[in-house]
Every structure is written in C-alpha cells, then in structure tokens.
C-alpha cells in the first residue's frame, strides 16, 4: 500500500515544504523589519538574502509541483484550483521579498516614535500570511477548518488596514517634507499589499473549498 501511493506521498511532502517556505518567508520579513527598525542593518541584510534564496527555492518547488500535477494527471477536478492557490501564494512570498528589498534599497527614514506602529503593521501583515497558509493546509486535509482559518485572515487583514491608516495619519500630521511623507506612506502601502494578496488567496480558497465538498 505504501509503495503504491509513494509518489502521492512525495508530492504531498513537497506541497507541505512549499507552504513551509511561505511561512518562513513571513517570519524572516518580520525579523528583518524589527532589525531594520533597531538599526542592525547588517543582520537585516543577511535576513533579506535568506529571504531571497527562500523565494527562489519556492519558485522552483512550485514549478516542480505544477509539472508533476499535470504530468501525472493528478486531482483532475481540483488541479486548476490547487495550481491557482500555489501561484497566488507564491505572489504573496514575492511581495514579502520585494517589500523587504525596497526597505534595503530605499532605506526609509521612519521616525523613532512610529517604529512600534510600523512593527505592528508588519506583524499583522504577516499574521494574514500565516492564516492563509493554515487555510491552504486545511484545504488539503480538513475542509471543515478552512473557514475558521479564513476568518482569521480576514480579521488580521482589517487590523493591517487600520494600523496602516494610523501610521499614514501619524506621518501626514507631522512636520516632515512632503516627499518624506509620501515615501513613508509607500512602505505602509506595501505592507498592506501583503495582507491584500493573502486575502485574495483566501477568497479563491473559499470557492475551491465549496467545490471540494462531496
């Protein structure tokens, strides 16, 4: 029996590995933001490098999984949904990497008193990603808990929006140059985009889940 389903097990493990990469990417982002706000730029750069490697590995793994799903004509009914989920979750990982890279390139000057707010923003944005990954895992194994995880994502998405709004209000009510204000707004917006991408994945997931109910 084990031999019979070995290939399926391998693919299962690869999908899990890919989702692990997305979660780890989120953790590296959180850590990177924290290090940046603390001014530990060298360690921040190391995290960014790790994140970029992880993103590349994720891309490779995703392509491998997609090829296998097509070649072996596995899960014919849900294949389109699964591939869509993998691709859109890859976009989330790309967005995380891109945001951290932009911080590294543009070195935004965040006022010290806004550090906790930006840190919260990063935390909430990554919480949506973690919820998204949990929901995807549930989609593969336990359909009944997909909904709970999606609700969690929606909650953190709202928190991210609220925090981003607070951050932007705080920035624009300060005595700063307009270019500086717009620059900071841009980084809040990018953190929001991470949460938005994760929410899009969950929207797709809720439809795919309905289709999977027998």
């Amino acid at each position, binding site marked *: 029996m084990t031999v019979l*389903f070995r290939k*399926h097990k391998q693919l299962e493990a690869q999908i899990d590995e890919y989702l692990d990469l997305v979660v780890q990417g989120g953790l590296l982002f959180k850590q990177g933001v924290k290090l940046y706000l603390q001014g530990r730029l060298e360690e921040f750069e190391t995290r960014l490098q790790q994140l970029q490697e992880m993103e590349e590995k994720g891309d490779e793994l995703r392509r491998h999984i997609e090829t296998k799903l097509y070649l072996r004509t*596995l*899960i014919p009914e849900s294949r389109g949904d699964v591939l869509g989920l993998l691709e859109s979750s890859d976009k989330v990982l790309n967005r995380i990497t891109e945001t951290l890279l932009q911080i590294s390139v543009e070195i935004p000057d965040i006022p010290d008193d806004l550090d906790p707010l930006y840190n919260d923003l990063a935390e909430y944005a990554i919480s949506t990603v973690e919820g998204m990954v949990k929901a995807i895992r549930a989609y*593969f*194994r336990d*359909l009944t808990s997909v909904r709970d995880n999606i609700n969690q994502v929606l909650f953190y998405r709202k928190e991210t929006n609220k925090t981003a709004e607070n951050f932007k209000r705080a920035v624009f009510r300060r005595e700063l140059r307009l270019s500086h204000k717009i620059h900071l707004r841009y980084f809040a917006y990018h953190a929001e985009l991470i949460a938005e991408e994760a929410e899009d994945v969950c929207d797709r997931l809720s439809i795919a889940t309905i289709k*999977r109910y*027998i």
Partner: protein
Amino acid sequence: MIWFFLISGLFLGWSLGANDAANVFGTAVGTRMVRFKVAALISSLFVILGAVMAGSGTTETLGALGAVDAIAGSFTVALMAAITVAWMTRTALPVSTTQAIVGAIIGWDFFTRSPIDLRVLSKIIGSWILSPVLAALLAMALYFIFRCCLNRARIHMLRLDAYTRTGLILVGALGAYSLGANNIANVMGVFVHASPFQDVHVFDLFVFSGTRQLFLLGGVAIAVGIYTYSQRMMTTVGNDIFQLTPVLALIVVLAQSLVLLIFASKSLQGALIAIGLPPIPLVPVSSSQAIIGAILGVGLVKGGKGLNYRILFKISLGWILTPVMAAVLSFIALFFMQNVFELEVIHKESPHPVAQRVERVDRADAGDALPHHEPERPAARPLHQADDPVIWNPNQPNELVGQDGNQTPGPAGRRMNPADSLVERQAMTVADSLHVVVADTTVPPYRQNELNKP
C-alpha cells in the same frame, strides 16, 4: 446459417458494450480519474468473467418470460431489440438494453400466442421500478457514510485522489462483472434454447457448457462494443444529469454495481431465503436505470438544486417507449420472418407452452428460486391424484402414456400436437383441468417417475 443468426445477438452485445459500459466507467473516465484504455481493458475483462461465471441466473428469468427456442425467432427478437437500442440512441433518448429485449420477447410471446407468465413479467417490471429506487437509496446511504468517514479521516487531497482512483477501478471492475452477470441474458438469453454449442470437457477437470460458450461469445461482443464505441459515451455520461465529483462518481458507481449484483447473485438470493426473508428475483435490470437512480439519489441528498429535470423527464419517457417499441417491432418482424421468409420462429417439437407453464408453476411452488441447474422438485401435484391420469410427453406428442409407464392409446380427443393452433392449446388447458399430467421434459428421465408419485 446458425452463425448468421447469432449476428443479431452479437450486434445487441455490441450496443450493450457501447452504451452500458459507459454507465460503469463513464463517470471515472469523464472526470479524468481513469484513462479510457484502462477502463476499456478492465470492463471488457470483467464483463466476460461475469457473463461466463454468473450469467445463468437472469437468463432463466428471461427464458421464463418467453422461451424463444427457434433460432430464427431468437435472431428476430435480438435484432429488433438491437434496432430499438440503436434507434433510441440516435434520437438521443436514454436507452436500456434490458427493456428492449424484454419488450422484444413479449412481442414474440404475442406473436406465437405463448402464454405470458404474468408473475415473471411483474417481477421484471417491478425490478425496473425497484432497481433505480434501490440504487438511489444505496447511493444516499453511501453518501452519508463516505462524508462521515472522510470528515473524520482527514485524508490529504492527493492521497484521497489516489484512493478514489483505486476505488473507481475496483468498483468499476465489480460493476463490469455485475453488468456481465446481469445483462448477458439480454444479449444471449434468447439464443440459449437454440444454442449451437456442445459441452466441452476440459481434461476431465471441468465441463465448459454450451451455454457458457454462448455467454463467452456474447461477452466478447460486449467487449468489442466497449473498445470501439463507448469512449464518446464515457466522456459525456454523468454530467448531463448532475455534476459529479470523483468521490461522488465512486459512490454512484458503487451503488449501481451493488444493485446489479443484488439482482444477479444466486448466493444472496439463497442467503435471503435461508434467513426467511423474501428473495430478490434474479432479473436482468438496466444498468442505465440503476446509475440514473444512484445519481438522482446523491443529487437529492445534496439538495436537488443541480438536478436537470428536463433530462430526467426525457429518461422517464425512454423507459416507457423502449419496451413498447421493441415489442411492436418484434411482433412485426416475426410476422415477416414466418410468412415472407418462411422461417420457423417457434420450435415445433419444443415443449408445449403449457408444459413450460407447468414447469414454471412447479418451480414457483418450490420457492420461486428458479435455479439454473436441475431444480429440486416438490412432491407431485394434487393433479396426479385423479383417477386414471395420463401423461403427455411433448417429445412424443402423438403418444399418451399411463401412470404406470405403459402406453395407452387414450381417447382420440387427447391426441394433440404442441405445434398446433390456439384451439389445440386451449384443448391442452382443458386437458390440464381434466387431470392430464404434462410430462416435464426438463427433468431427466430417471427423475420423471418422481413427478408421478402421488
């Protein structure tokens, strides 16, 4: 010549393979869970196995409905059933091979003025209602069982996919076996009484009977139908009535296979009798009806919203039209066969229909089991207790034999020929009421005396 006549049966087998095999593997192939080549190979193999190993039960029931015993009669009946199937398929009405052959046999009964055994007929028509209902109920039950198990087991989607594929292949094999066992009677049942095959002894190990050789031939015809024409049907079946997921497809095919097996299994029938329950008749049921019943079952259990009622109405219409059309066509074709081509559509030396009727009544009294081999007979009927009973042997129609076995001339009015007109048949019935015992030629000679015991 006999091989030419068998062509109509093979044609019917081909159309059964092309149409009904799609019911077994259609959902699996349609949902791309099983490749057509795999489906065709498995279904062909198991249809043949089912036909050869377990095809006799339902054949007896069809034989009881009308023992078509002349090869030209068998040819016409099978051909008209096949034409009905082909015609209905062309007009896009869902068709049942079982209904077509039953209708064609009834047409033969009417034409030859053979008495229709209403008990058998009601059994068959009852099964047409019972089988979709049973399939729907089984599918509903299986749906709840599957849903409960899957929610608890939390199997990964990919592994579930693997299990479903394996399940579809195994259940498809069971379905194909059941289809062969249950529906071979439709294809070759009418040729059993006119079978050209002799029993073959294989190294004194077992006997490959003529009937089984006939069923093997029919099975091969079904397999050819599967390979040559079922692919298109397989890829379209299932989704017209209700959109099925692979797991639902598995449930539907499992329910259908179980229904076909229930109506073909002698062991199950024996078991039900043994525990005092009413036996399920061994009747060739329609795989199309069973699969539609099963799809309807899961559709209803899921709220009935996705069901296509227009298609369901069309299907119901087809279920009524098929047997009627086959009966009418069969009647007309038999008329031409006998009067234009001057071919014998009923065997002149065959047991008289009344003799068959007595045999059937005896069998029914013996528990309604209709066994395919030598039946266990009850003690002689009260008929024999009459004074001076006389035995009429259809193989020696001009001789009447006394109860002691001595030839007695008997009254002139009792000398009858079974191939004679309705008047003679009515006379036979009168003779029956006058306590004339009709010798049963299906019982071996050494057991004939048992019939005559008081």
